[in-house]
């Protein structure tokens, strides 16, 4: 943990060396990020709800997913950009060090410009909570907390899965975007608005629904049963096969570097 924090600090320092560049990129990220919200905002000027979900309810869902995604872009950048590590042959370097491999991958890169997205997600989250009339109790606070954490966990799992794929293909497959960017795009909406098959796939194969749909129903009072509120816990189980896949893939690793 100490090493990880130190590595983060180093990445931050090196990014701040180019101060103007950093600030400008930071601002442009906010704008790029805004384009995602733009879809929702403009569609809700024409429609009053989507399958019973109001603007702020969808935005709540949006911000939770965005939070998890950007969180990983900042703090698990090394996993996200794992293919570069393999292609450059730098992965060999990690293997000879007497530390946990995954920890080293996490330390290898980070992108602090994306902090702007985290901040933006938090702002939208707070705004939507203010606008929504939620009957708060202890369990609901806990549910919201679980949703945020599980959102980080699920994207970490998916990034990790995509990374383990790199061991076999050497190059980063663009198809992974379907599951990362595409999954994010889709999970920004309450998954219930989609067709049945989709909902099943994203409940059981990639459990997005446990991050932002079932707990959302509980949070908004659309479902009363407490296990809806606790369902994000299942996402943690999802991490197990992802980590296993990564180590399984590592056994197959052959270096490409020189």
């Amino acid at each position, binding site marked *: 943990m100490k090493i990880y924090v130190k590595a983060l600090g180093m990445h931050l320092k090196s990014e701040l060396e180019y101060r103007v560049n950093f600030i400008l*990129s930071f601002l442009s990220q906010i704008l790029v990020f805004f384009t995602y919200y733009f879809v929702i905002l403009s*569609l809700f000027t024409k429609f009053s709800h989507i399958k019973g979900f109001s603007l702020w309810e969808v935005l709540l869902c949006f911000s939770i997913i965005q939070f998890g995604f950007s969180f990983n872009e900042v703090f698990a950048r090394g996993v996200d950009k794992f293919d570069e590590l393999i292609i450059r042959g730098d992965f060999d370097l990690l293997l000879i060090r007497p530390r946990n491999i995954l920890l080293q991958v996490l330390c290898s890169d980070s992108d602090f410009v994306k902090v702007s997205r985290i901040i933006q997600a938090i702002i939208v989250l707070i705004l939507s909570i203010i606008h929504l009339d939620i009957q708060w109790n202890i369990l609901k606070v806990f549910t919201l907390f679980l949703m945020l954490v599980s959102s980080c966990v699920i994207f970490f799992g998916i990034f990790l899965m995509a990374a383990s794929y790199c061991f076999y293909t050497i190059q980063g497959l663009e198809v992974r975007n379907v599951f990362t960017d*595409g999954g994010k795009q889709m999970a920004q909406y309450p998954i219930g608005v989609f067709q049945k098959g989709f909902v099943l796939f994203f409940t059981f194969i990639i459990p997005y629904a446990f991050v932002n749909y079932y707990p959302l129903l509980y949070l908004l009072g659309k479902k009363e049963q407490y296990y809806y509120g606790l369902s994000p816990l299942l996402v943690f189980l999802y991490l197990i096969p992802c980590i296993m896949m990564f180590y399984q893939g590592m056994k197959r690793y052959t270096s490409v570097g020189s």
Partner: protein
Amino acid sequence: MKAYFTYFKLKFISGLQYRSAAWAGIATQFFFGFVYVMIYIAFYDSGGENLPMNIHQVITYLWLNQSLLALVNQFSKDQELFKMVKDGTISYELARPKNLYFMWYFKVLGQRLSNVVLRFFPLILVTSLLPKPYTFGGPSSLFNFLLFLISLTIGTLLVTALTVLYPIITLTTMSEKGIVNIMISIADILSGLVVPIPFFPLFLQKISKFLPFQYISDLPFRIYVGNVDILFGIHGIFIQTIWFIIIVFFGFSLMKKNLKRVVVQGG
């Protein structure tokens, strides 16, 4: 002229080599398109008033958008040109006895066309076979289709001129991060890439009337689905052409001006 055409051909043919990248792109765009289609269907099922397009028009619009994305978007910048500006390779380009603006223009055009040729047909084929309501529909009439082809052609020329403009601006700013990226994301929104223009809030619709971006893809797509009447379409094509001439002229003179005090970076 022949030399410029060679640049075009070169980029076009070498672009066609990247077939596996194209397959990945097709898969991604199909997924994204499908998600968007389902979102719009869910919205339409929930009911709304004074909707600017019917659901079939929207879905066909969305599929057109996805299958022609490589042609009409601005966010996938031509990295090669930016690299030239940033690492000083531009000095080699300047040594060539041809106009740099048109060299770049035809390179970008070739690149864009080859990208779209690989992606367009599979996507259109698959999406037209989808069951209703997801299916990609045909043009509203033969005449609309002809108008669509004309305005898409001019739209392509226009978006190419805009894509060349960004590295030219980078000649002054030295890095495309920041200002140029901000410009590009605004441009992409205003060209209707994320949401069709008729769904914009009213004030934004008014603003985009005075900007070139909605003439890139929004106009041709709306002509195709029959969301605008013929007269409006012809009028639009006229404005499109004027914008194209303005942007090319602007890019050409900006480049001339910037090249007078160009800094070659790198060593």
